[in-house]
């Protein structure tokens, strides 16, 4: 592994499988009466979150604590960022207190790369703007592999706001690296140009895209990133692209439905689908802890000599 985890782009196929296999072992720790191992004792990990987050921040923090690291959370709402400090200055000040790792969530794409250049601490990207969210893609792959026993050759359909989604980008990079047949679908205004160069099939017709799918992954409509009129209304969006039982019926009978959260019920996904038997949305959350433990463990050691 490299020093930092900034994106799926940095990982080879073998490294992805190493993370997934390590996560299998980590999951068992969460089932013990004492959910803690001494592995990262004495390591300090700073969770630096510039964007609101419940799932990812909690998941990282639980993972860090289960590995016995000392963790602290910096939420921007209560930090000096509000006094006008730049990301680089904040990072250098944190760095001066010698943490071992920084987990960064930031609204700007490439924020992790900036920190990677100026920090000796290992950087884990917990979502940077519209770029990547590597641990989400890894936990999605873990969840898919658990249900389907493989990733190679599966038809995975990703539907929704393709333009603003870092989850999409990381998932496409990962799934195509592992040989899945990835389809994407969404309103033309939210399909970034050139997306087919990533090796995916684009279909504006959701019914075609979900037909015969092994996995359906729904993406959230990210209204906070939409500066302009991309969709006429949320209700119209649901009618055309929302995941309903009728659409799920076009997929394979044993299809699984995924969503990275937070869900907008009635916008991208119907409630009876989100809570339905094929939904693995809460399993994704549970698996997130094990996958993040694996990433923390693998990065905490020495970087590959190169």
């Amino acid at each position, binding site marked *: 592994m490299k020093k930092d985890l900034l994106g799926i782009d940095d990982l080879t196929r073998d490294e992805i499988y190493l993370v997934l296999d390590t996560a299998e*072992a980590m999951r068992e720790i969460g089932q*013990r*009466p004492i959910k*803690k191992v001494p*592995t*990262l004792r004495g390591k300090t990990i700073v969770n630096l979150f510039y964007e609101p987050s419940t799932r990812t921040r909690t998941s990282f923090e639980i993972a860090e604590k289960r590995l016995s690291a000392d963790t602290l959370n910096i939420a921007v709402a209560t930090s000096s960022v509000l006094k006008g400090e730049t990301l680089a200055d904040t990072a250098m000040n944190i760095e001066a207190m010698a943490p071992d790792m920084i987990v960064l969530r930031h609204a700007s794409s490439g924020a992790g790369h900036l920190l990677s250049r100026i920090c000796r601490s290992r950087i884990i990207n917990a979502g940077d703007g519209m770029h990547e969210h590597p641990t989400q893609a890894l936990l999605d792959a873990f969840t898919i592999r658990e249900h389907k026993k493989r990733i190679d050759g599966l038809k995975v359909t990703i539907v929704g706001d393709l333009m603003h989604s870092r989850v999409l980008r990381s998932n496409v990079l990962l799934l195509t690296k592992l040989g899945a047949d990835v389809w994407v679908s969404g309103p033309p205004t939210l399909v970034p140009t050139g997306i087919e160069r990533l090796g995916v099939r684009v279909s504006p017709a959701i019914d075609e895209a979900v037909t015969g799918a092994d996995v359906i992954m729904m993406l959230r409509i990210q209204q906070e990133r939409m500066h302009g009129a991309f969709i006429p209304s949320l209700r119209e969006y649901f009618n055309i692209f929302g995941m309903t039982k009728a659409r799920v019926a076009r997929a394979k009978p044993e299809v699984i439905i995924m969503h990275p959260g937070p869900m907008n019920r009635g916008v991208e996904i119907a409630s009876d689908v989100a809570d339905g038997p094929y939904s693995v949305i809460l399993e994704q959350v549970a698996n997130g802890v094990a996958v993040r433990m694996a990433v923390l*463990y693998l990065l905490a*050691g020495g*970087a590959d000599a190169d």
Partner: protein
Amino acid sequence: MDADRIGRTLARIAHEILERNRGVEDLALVGIRTRGVPLARRLARAIREIQRRDPSTKLGVDPGSSAVDIPTGALDITLYRDDLMRTAVGAQPVIRRTEIPFSIDDKRILLVDDVLYTGRTIRAALDALIEFGRPKAIQLIVLVDRGHRELPIKADYVGKNLPTSVSQSVQVHLMEVDGRDEVEILES
């Protein structure tokens, strides 16, 4: 040690276990990954065989009942190693699953490993095991004791004492992992 010798050694240890523990009721075997696990399974089989042939060894067990299977688990100690994170370069050791599908509370745990050397693996295994509960006792079984202890640790059952120098390495090969049964000493 060849396959035959390994087989007879394990049979002997199985007898010793029964003799020393007077029955198997609260015994459980835990093998340390990698090669302690197949050794633990073989010991469980050997003990069952002895009980079948000689029911008098089923002390503490309901008379007339059939042979008792000793619960057997697998322990991966990687996350408890004392040499993790000490080097700045190089990949982390691979972690495998720990599987202890029974409560170890108030059990007599037979911890199994292939080679006893510095004792550091056993130290890590004891720490790992204690997190699963409070066993009544922990006993240590090793196929080979090669000396050179760095910690105050001693095995309760030893297959063979093998005097070695630090420059040598002792390699245990087992059918389940390596496709053959053999213990060899390699010069480095």
